[in-house]
């Protein structure tokens, strides 16, 4: 057979065809991978928001837990009376931390992480504080957004 013998007159043409075909495949593979990669990326939705209640209602409770999008959040007041919200997702491995009113802190049931009422790490494996969420007031209504707080 002439096909696989590099010494035949067909060999240069065969090599050229091989290079052309594989080049064409590679050229097509690149946009296919690009399109698939962009398709797989989840659509960017706007920040999720949730109404926590009125300012007066929240004033009566030391802590209020609510759902903001897919996140669980807690709305609290600092010593000066200003409202803030924390994402209850532990920054170590993703379990939800528990609010303990008795000692005024958060405890993670999974790996023993401890946070103070401001979300700062007290002890355990977590290295990062609990994530702060954005709290806004609209005519006395408290709205929590999963957009990270600037504070």
């Amino acid at each position, binding site marked *: *057979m*002439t*096909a*696989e013998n590099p010494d035949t007159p*067909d060999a240069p*043409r*065969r090599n050229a*065809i*091989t290079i052309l*075909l594989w080049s*064409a*495949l590679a050229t*097509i593979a690149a946009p296919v991978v690009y*399109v*698939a990669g*962009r*398709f*797989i*990326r*989840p*659509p960017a*939705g706007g920040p*999720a*928001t*949730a109404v926590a209640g009125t300012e007066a209602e929240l004033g009566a409770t030391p802590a209020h837990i609510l*759902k903001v*999008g*897919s996140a669980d959040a807690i709305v609290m007041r600092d010593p000066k009376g200003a409202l803030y919200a924390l994402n209850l997702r532990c920054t170590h491995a993703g379990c939800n931390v528990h609010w303990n009113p008795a000692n005024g802190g958060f405890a993670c049931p999974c790996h023993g992480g401890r946070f103070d009422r401001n979300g700062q790490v007290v002890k355990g494996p977590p290295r990062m504080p609990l994530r702060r969420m954005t709290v806004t007031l609209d005519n006395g209504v408290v709205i929590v957004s999963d957009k990270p707080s600037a504070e």
Partner: protein
Amino acid sequence: MIPSPSNRPQPEPENPGSGPREGHHPLMELRGWLARKHVPEHRHSLWYYFGGLTLFLLALMVASGLLLTLYYEPSAAPAVTSDGTPLAAARVLKGLDWGEHHYVAGDVIALPLNARTGEIIVPAGMKGAVETVKDGITGGVIRPSAAWVSVEGTIMRDVEFGPLVRSVHVYSANLLIATLLIHMFSAFFLRAYRRPRGLMWVTGFILLGLILGFAFTGYLLPWNTLAYFATRIGVSLPESSMPGIGPAAANALRGGTDVGDATLTRMYSAHVVALPMAAILFVILHLLFLQIFGLSIPIGARRRGGRGLAASLGGIAAAVLIAWPIAMGTFDPLAPPVLAAFVVLPVVIAYLLSGMAAPAVESPDGTSLGSIPFYSNFIYRDLLCWLVAFGIIVTLAIAVPWRGQNPGSMPVDLTRPLATPPGIHPEWYFMFAFQLLRAVPGTLAVICLILLGAGILAVPLLDRRAARGERSTAMTVLGIAVAVGLAGLTVWGYLSLATG
């Protein structure tokens, strides 16, 4: 036994040992096997490429389908936003740009519903451009399902390249069925089913049934009124026409006495689990039998003339692509003649181009027919054919993107009375059955369809002359009658729709 160059033992270049040679990786044996494998080259070898093209389109279906499953939600439950607000259907009244999307008049979209007032919450940028869609019977608000929103909202609007991926899936599906039909009819007329390849014919026929099953189950998934009623009609066919087993079969398919949430779950399960598993099994068997029995050489095949046949087919395909849209006044890629032309073109282009680049060599056994090495000549021709087909599909998907929405396809809300879309009809590949059902009584139509299927399945047994290497005129006439009958019923169906 018909001699087959593809599995004929070829002389070993060196050391004709039976097992892996010392110092050689076992994979080197694969290379040796590939080097020995040859594909016959004759007047009708063009038809060999439709099998490979079918396999490629099936792979494209699997790849695009896998991507679509990332976002599709198989649930008929009413859709809600991430914060639990119910959604309602709204119709766009005039073209507008909102957010990152462009909406055209007539589009149906999902907007949040004010549960207290029962009206949609219209975003500021859409004021005056949308209206709440009410069902035409009780005037209630239509709440689209999670399935509908995941298709028309998430895939078609929110995800990047979503419409492209869905269009590739839809166009590949239609081209796949067209390719499969051409592959089947060419195998029939070239008597490729004759001994010992009867099992290839049977596995191929089962694959045709499975692919039609994919088409039927996939049709329901967008969960719009067109899909809903198409499935109701399709599933009720055995119910009304087959006493005894019919109602039980229909209930099993539906998961109840009517099409509902359970039907969607069952169709989805069949579409992405049961049918793919069965299809993979039968593709493996089909290819395995191909390796065992080799490619069929048509009875009395002559070496020359292949290019003339290819050029003629290509000319007809090109003429159809030009003449059909002009005659119809619109370009519909899914019109059967256009689809057939799109299937034929890649094969013809690959055949003619590669034939010029690498002509057939003399057959190693000195017979009058030539042959080409499977690797790399044949596989390169196949690859070229797939590249052209892929180019056609992607071009269609970009230039004429598939729009799932049409005036007859509203989201289905199972809590509301449903109106059947006017002029409802199946896709082209089921049109023959649809017209048969309209033309003759249901039970007779079902008997005809069962006989047709059984007859096609039994072709290797019916044609005894082919096994002796003789062509049977009766079988040719029968094949032409079936092809003309199916095409005639399809054309009749479309003409009946056009004339009301």
